[in-house]
């Protein structure tokens, strides 16, 4: 307990004795965490947007005219068992015409007279959770004797599959890179702080301080500095993101944006914990050289 008090006091003194260096560390870690947070928010929203777009993909399985209801039910059962399928609905050709009419709106008069020889077909509409499920639905129905044709946004699905895969790999890679960059930035500023006090470290060791006693004040210092920066960054990002979500809600309603409140309540503590970890690791890495035998 006494040593903990000593370590915390020394950490605080270390920060106060080098105010400019400490401020630089807070600023560096703040900027690093800010960039990381902005990137994470962008990545989460992009992922959300991809999910949203993927859910818009629909497969229409057109049936031949002489399909019995039991055959139809069996086919629907088979489709609903396919992985990634979340909705299977039967739409009669009459219902399809009603929809078409509604879609034409004011120009519905163009469709007059079409009822007598409704050209539309009965269809099973399949909703999927991801673009890749389209291929699986296709494989399940394409050789079925009662399936006349299958329609889906072939181009859109192919592009979505390649784009989402690239984006997800890219997000993971960039998040890793940014994490490592943040670690090095914070480690570097702690290393400067250790370097400024190398004499003190040498004397501490000389008078019989164990490595732990030498280490902990710097570890606390690294954690305090990194967390202060992360806290400031978290607050700024919350403000900016709240403003963006309000702006989007007013002006770009069709684009789905993750709500600021719940997202930031989870993200800010996570960033703080990550910063504390990075600050402590940075301090340990920086001290390794000075604590070598």
């Amino acid at each position, binding site marked *: 307990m*006494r*040593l903990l008090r*000593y370590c915390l006091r020394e950490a605080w003194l270390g920060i106060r*004795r080098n105010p400019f260096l400490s401020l630089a560390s807070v600023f560096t870690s703040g900027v690093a965490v800010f960039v990381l947070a902005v990137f994470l928010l962008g990545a989460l929203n992009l992922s959300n947007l991809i999910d949203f777009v993927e859910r818009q993909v629909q497969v229409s399985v057109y049936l031949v005219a002489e399909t019995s209801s039991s055959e139809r039910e069996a086919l629907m059962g088979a489709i609903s068992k396919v992985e990634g399928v979340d909705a299977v609905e039967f739409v009669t050709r009459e219902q399809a015409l009603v929809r078409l009419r509604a879609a034409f709106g004011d120009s519905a008069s163009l469709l007059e007279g079409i009822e007598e020889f409704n050209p539309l077909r009965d269809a099973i509409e399949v909703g999927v959770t991801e673009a890749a499920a389209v291929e699986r639905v296709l494989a399940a129905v394409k050789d079925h004797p009662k399936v006349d044709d299958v329609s889906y946004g072939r181009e859109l699905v192919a592009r979505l599959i390649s784009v989402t895969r690239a984006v997800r790999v890219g997000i993971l890679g960039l998040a890793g890179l940014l994490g490592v960059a943040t670690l090095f930035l914070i480690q570097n500023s702690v290393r400067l702080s250790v370097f400024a006090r190398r*004499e*003190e470290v*040498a*004397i*501490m*060791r*000389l*008078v*019989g*301080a*164990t*490595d732990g*006693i*030498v280490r902990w004040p710097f570890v606390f210092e690294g954690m305090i500095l990194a967390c202060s920066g992360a806290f400031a960054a978290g607050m700024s990002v919350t403000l900016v993101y709240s403003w963006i979500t309000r702006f989007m809600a007013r002006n770009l309603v069709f684009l789905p944006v993750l709500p600021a409140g719940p997202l930031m309540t989870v993200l800010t503590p996570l960033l703080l914990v990550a910063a504390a970890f990075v600050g402590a690791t940075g301090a340990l890495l920086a001290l390794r050289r000075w604590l070598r*035998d």
Partner: protein
Amino acid sequence: MSGTVEKLVLTRGSRSGHLRPRRQPVCQGTWRCELIEYQQVSKQYSAKVRALDDVSFDVAKGEFLFIVGPSGAGKSTLLRLAYREERPTAGTVIVDGRDVSKLRSPAVAYLRRNIGVVFQDFKLLPRKTVHENVAFALEVTGAGASEIRRRVGAVLDLVGLRSRHRAYPEELSGGEQQRTCLARAMANGPKILLADEPTGNLDPETGTELMQALYDISLLGTTVMVATHAHSIVDAFRCRVVRLEKGRLVRDDRKSGYWGADGVRLGYEGDGQP
């Protein structure tokens, strides 16, 4: 080494409060008296730089010892080996019964709490006061606040700096800085005090005063090893001298009958070239 070695201990007189010498046996019979043992120690820094070459000698408990020799003779290396700032390339250094080169990191820290070190360049922390500089040595050992206050007060009294405890190093004279360094070295009540050219940055008079302080500390029971090339000071103290030249031990007063039959130090007859 076995046998009996006696040393002078200063005890505080009950009435006058003055220090007076009292002869006291340090160790007797088969007890080992050596606190520091260098056994065939060599230290090679690089292929061309050999700081020590097959050096062997012992230092007894409570002994006051000068290590002399020209610059680069290996004096500082000898001291650094004792507090495990360096490890020998060959041979063994035993301090208080333990081979220091085999100690692991935490044990090195505990070893150093028993060894005070005084440097030529003082190594004081400029942003700490005299009191804080001395207290620092106790804080890192986890001592309590009241104990720190008591012990810092005692060692500052010992070196005569109680009145300057709030001063920062830059406000002190060279002699005062060195005494602060000495107080810090003594704060943990070490068994051994090592001083590496402690008078190097001091004028002759202040240097002699400091050496007297070190000698007085040895009379209180602490083993003191002083590396120096201030031969005038060495001449003034009749103490055992170990002389190094180019890393080799060329003279050891103990081996050449330095101790008198009654255990009183016969001293060093200065040869004018320490």
